[in-house]
């Protein structure tokens, strides 16, 4: 277990390369969710198509998150002491936990075929999902800025 983490710490390119993969996977995961949420809000693909495109995009969202989490753990392991001391890192994790919980509950129900999408409740769920994921992404960016 220690060997790859050791390599990441000692290599000059490992952290940048892993971080770039992390960012690209974030764009894929949040990008797919964003298209679904914008469609629920009537701002992208036709609303009636949402359950269908949600099913079609789910594998890409999952693949994106798989890579995000794997690379995120590697990045954390390489700078664990530095990260643990940053409040913004913990704030991001709390936001992330909230966004994941929201995604697996309210958002999962939102894209069910039986769910009426033409309702204020559906629109608020989509808007909250967008706000949560962009807040998580902002938290991630802020780790580097603060």
């Amino acid at each position: 277990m220690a060997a790859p983490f050791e390599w990441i710490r000692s290599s000059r390119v490992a952290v940048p390369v892993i971080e770039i993969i992390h960012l690209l996977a974030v764009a894929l995961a949040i990008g797919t969710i964003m298209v679904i949420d914008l469609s629920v809000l009537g701002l992208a693909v036709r609303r009636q198509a949402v359950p269908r495109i949600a099913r079609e995009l789910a594998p890409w969202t999952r693949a994106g998150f798989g890579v995000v989490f794997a690379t995120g753990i590697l990045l954390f392991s390489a700078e664990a002491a530095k990260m643990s001391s940053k409040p913004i890192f913990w704030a991001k994790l709390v936001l992330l936990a909230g966004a994941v919980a929201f995604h697996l509950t309210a958002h999962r129900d939102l894209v069910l075929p039986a769910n009426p999408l033409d309702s204020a409740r559906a629109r608020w769920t989509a808007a909250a999902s967008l706000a949560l994921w962009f807040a998580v992404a902002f938290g991630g960016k802020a780790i580097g800025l603060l």
Partner: protein
Amino acid sequence: MSPALLHFFEWLNGTPLAEAIRLSTWWYPILEAVHSLGVIVVLGSIWMLDLRLLGVGMRSRRVSEIAGRLLPWTWSGFGVQALSGSLLLVSEATRLYSIPYFWIKLVLLALAAVNALVFHLGVYRGVGGWDEAPATPFAAKVAGAVSLTLWVGVVAAGRAIGYVT
């Protein structure tokens, strides 16, 4: 690079605007945060069309529907990126001039634009014939694959700029 170009970048670097961004505590981090989040909107919308063109995502939707409904997001996102990116560029023009990743990023962006133009003036003109087909023509798959790859390169080169000290 030509001396004229270097002079232009040095001039940009010395403008009052560049000075103002550098002197402010908040402008640079705000611009960087906007630029970093904006990429999600640009990639999120472009990649969805690319996945459809490759026949591996949103296969139930017509290609023209995805292109038509998502292109406004691509353009709005791109507008935000161009504006925030230009301000970031001005604020550290001299530094960027010397970083190869910056030029690589610009070249990849230009190639992505050429690819999109070739797609829209080429195979997309006949989209009526394959709009609903889950499997797209070879030229459309190539356009999707090239776009996907070029944008990976744009983001990678962009992030790499930040690692050069």
